């Protein structure tokens, strides 16, 4: 365990926070946090909040000198964001001159009570976002572009190339020499310019339309509201310079990437998913998830965002699929916009989640007219879509024509955000980004089953809720926190996700038992700032070839390694390090296959020891037998001895108390067989 406890200055904060846990009523008046929530208790397990002795409570705030707490993870490197992305380069708009006080208006003008006399907040620079990996390179997306890092030595990573190209969110994927990037914001430009979209010279706004009376009925599912429009503002003129969609860069020359294509889409690209077709080696596909407003047809032909009843061609209620010819990426284009929310019975394209009320005391679930993120797991021909109001399952055996095969909703879910499959495809872990990521939703007052992971079993194409998991340490009101992006950690025999929780830090969860997930490692920092609200923390945290990389929105890139703890042994870490990816895009989830060697076997042995599924005597005999076989010239007797133990394990697996232990015993027996029988 590594603990860097906080300095004295934070001690009082820690104590007062601890007190607030004990005397919530006393502190209620001071904390303008969430009111008591009449949340219905969940029908499935939800992990408990950690106690007041959790070292993550009361960490000292700071941009680069915050207090840190870690368990089972060791931070080995941090690299702040570089020029063009770093905090503090350009101040936020300087304070406007405040007019002289005139009674009440002045108090209101400074934000009423608590106004601090206009201390401008620090500017935290471009927002770091998602990660992709290729060989010895790490690609860190940012609202302002992408940074490429050399990670030959993960403990000493180096910035290689910065690409300045605004557009947010800057989600990245990489395939060979092609790098893909999402852009959705209003300031993105085809030419990667940083000036945004200025008005054309001599532009004068057309006269405003007359204001119609308010019409509440106009708020139909996903339709653009027409009600209550005030006069006085004219729509922005369409701009051929604006870019919202997916950019494609050629990174053959890693120091001089070139933009080879910029595929525009109606809602832009909030996230995207690289999807490969096992039958097609000449093309790759990109699924675009767009969550922003729909552009005007004057800006991008064919775009409209109307109510599907009146506008069957609406850009709502669909995803877009780009086909990228590898030999000619400049010809990449949208080839399909499947209506994956269609009600198969009625044919209505807005078939899912028409009414959002899921009962009293439950979450508000966003109406499903979009996916936020999709994770493809090609090895089983499925993708899991986190689609605002629903989790959905897609059959992607025909990559360009995904078909929905299941959809679930959940009364405790507000915004279905992302998904990960377990490596055997028997579970899907979804995340709920309650509050959109900018809000503090891990306070002691926030329910543990809101803004959490939801773990579903996946059997015969059907998803069934098993449990919730939320990073357990209560966070302050100054820390935006909710479930966010993570990846599997390839420890054989267990389902483990390492996950980002914004300013809630990193939490590693074991969900091998889908009904009882629990935390096995963590890393956390104190708030970035307690005076000014900063949106920061971990966006994505992914395992790649023995290290765990985190994109910290404000503070840069962090690199961690696993260290043994009561929950993870060195043998399990060694076994995970037997896995090597040439490339990793987490939303194009790879199927991990472990080698049949004794390094992996020792992880299973530790797990069977931990669970007690195999007696200590047998474990000792097994270890001794493996040691003999590992010698340079094992005798036939040694080989036969180990083989006998292996056969016994295989046979006894049926009596194991849990299916996880049975699987481990079978896997161990298989390794033994391959290293004894097959070698004789």
């Amino acid at each position, binding site marked *: 365990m590594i603990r860097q406890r906080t300095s004295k200055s934070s001690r009082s904060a820690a104590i007062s926070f601890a007190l607030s846990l004990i005397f919530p009523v006393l502190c209620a008046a001071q904390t303008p946090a969430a009111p008591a929530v009449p949340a219905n208790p969940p029908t499935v397990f939800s992990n408990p909040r950690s106690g007041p002795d959790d070292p993550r409570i009361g960490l000292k705030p700071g941009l680069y000198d915050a207090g840190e707490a870690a368990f089972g993870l060791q931070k080995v490197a941090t690299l702040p964001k570089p020029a063009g992305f770093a905090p503090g380069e350009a101040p936020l*708009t300087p304070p406007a001159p405040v007019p002289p006080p005139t009674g009440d208006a002045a108090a209101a003008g400074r934000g009423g009570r608590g106004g601090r006399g206009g201390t401008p907040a620090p500017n935290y620079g471009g927002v770091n976002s998602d990660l992709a990996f290729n060989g010895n390179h790490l690609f860190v997306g940012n609202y302002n572009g992408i940074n490429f890092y050399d990670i030959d030595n993960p403990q000493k990573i180096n910035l290689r190339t910065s690409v300045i190209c605004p557009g947010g969110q800057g989600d990245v994927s990489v395939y060979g020499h092609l790098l893909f990037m999402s852009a959705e914001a209003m300031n993105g430009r085809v030419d990667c310019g940083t000036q945004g979209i200025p008005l054309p010279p001599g532009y004068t706004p057309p006269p405003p339309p007359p204001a119609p009376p*308010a019409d509440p009925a106009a708020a139909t599912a996903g339709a653009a509201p027409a009600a209550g429009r005030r006069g006085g503002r004219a729509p922005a003129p369409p701009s051929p310079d604006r870019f919202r969609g997916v950019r494609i860069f050629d990174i053959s020359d890693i120091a001089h990437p070139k933009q080879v294509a910029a595929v525009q889409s109606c809602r832009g690209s909030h996230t995207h998913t690289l999807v490969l077709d096992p039958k097609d080696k000449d093309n790759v596909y990109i699924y675009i998830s767009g969550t922003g407003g729909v552009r005007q047809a004057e800006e991008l032909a064919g775009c409209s965002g109307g109510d599907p009843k009146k506008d069957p061609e609406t850009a709502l209620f669909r995803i877009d699929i780009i086909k990228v010819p590898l030999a000619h990426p400049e010809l990449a284009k949208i080839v399909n916009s499947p209506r994956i929310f269609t009600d198969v019975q009625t044919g209505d394209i807005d078939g899912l989640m028409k009414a959002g009320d899921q009962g009293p005391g439950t979450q508000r679930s966003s109406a499903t007219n979009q996916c936020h993120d999709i994770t493809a797991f090609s090895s089983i021909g499925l993708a899991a879509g986190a689609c605002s*109001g629903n989790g959905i399952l897609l059959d992607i055996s025909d990559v360009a024509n995904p078909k929905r095969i299941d959809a679930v909703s959940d009364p405790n879910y507000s915004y279905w955000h992302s998904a990960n499959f377990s490596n055997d495809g028997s579970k899907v872990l979804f995340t709920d980004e309650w509050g959109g990521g900018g809000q503090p939703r891990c306070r002691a007052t926030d329910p543990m089953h809101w803004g959490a992971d939801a773990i579903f079993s996946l059997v015969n194409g059907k998803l069934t809720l098993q449990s919730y998991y939320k990073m357990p340490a209560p966070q302050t009101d100054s820390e935006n926190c909710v479930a966010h992006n993570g990846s599997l950690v390839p420890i054989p025999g267990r389902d483990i996700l390492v996950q980002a929780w914004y300013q809630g830090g990193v939490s590693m969860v074991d969900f091998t038992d889908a009904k009882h997930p629990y935390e096995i490692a963590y890393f956390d920092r104190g708030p970035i700032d307690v005076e000014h609200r900063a949106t920061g923390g971990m966006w994505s945290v992914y395992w790649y070839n023995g290290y765990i990389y985190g994109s910290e929105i404000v503070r840069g890139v962090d690199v961690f390694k696993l260290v043994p703890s009561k929950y993870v042994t060195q043998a399990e870490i060694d076994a995970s390090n037997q896995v090597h990816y040439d490339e990793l895009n987490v939303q194009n989830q790879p199927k991990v296959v472990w080698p049949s060697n004794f390094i992996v076997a020792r992880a299973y042995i530790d797990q069977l020891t931990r669970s007690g599924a195999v007696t200590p005597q047998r474990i000792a005999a097994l270890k001794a037998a493996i040691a003999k076989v590992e010698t340079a010239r094992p005798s036939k007797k040694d080989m036969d001895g180990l083989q006998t133990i292996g056969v016994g394990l295989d046979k006894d697996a049926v009596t194991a108390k849990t299916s996880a232990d049975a699987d481990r015993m079978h896997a161990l027996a298989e390794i033994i067989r391959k290293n004894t029988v097959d070698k004789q």
Partner: protein
Amino acid sequence: MAICVPAISAALICLGAAIAFGQETKPPTGPPTIVQPGAPGQAGKTLTPATARARPHTLADADVSFMQGMIMHHSQAVEMVALLKTRGASKDLQALGDRITISQSDEIRFMKKWLEDRGKPTTMGQDMSHMDMKGMDMKGMNMKMDMPLMPGMLSPAQMDALAKAKGAAFDHLFLTGMIQHHTGALTMVQELFETPGAGQDAVLFDFATDIDNTQRAEIKIMQGMLEKK
């Protein structure tokens, strides 16, 4: 020795390559390059750390007035829920009201911080000329004119009617009023993004998009409640 097997996902998964991985020789590299690519097919530019520095972001007036207006707009929702506490009948509606209060109270604090951090007033008042609202009493919600301030906001007459209603009649007025109110928020978001030069601040973009998503969902919930009655 690395063993590579093509996984079905077509990403190569190499087994046992950890040793080889650590031994690869590092290619010679110079200082990091900073590149601003051009449009597809166009040449890019190489920048220096000095020229790459982000320029001060200029906020559009509409960005500031959106946040100021939304604070006022959200405040009325909180006020309406306060009435619901004592006057409403439906338990489902009370639960919905609590959720509205959590999200809108959090968001009000978020918007005030956003404005304060940028040195902007948290309420409108100085420059209202473009909104044609001169002479209005801007203190709180007790508007003297029978006209909504921000899109969808209930007029003083509507608020009065709500404050006098009770039971099922209150619930109905609350639902129709809150649907009107939330619909106005969608209008405000749409107007923001349609305003030339506005909505280009990343934090604001994310925030406004989230308001659109969540209020749309709440409208659907409330429409469902109305239909049930």
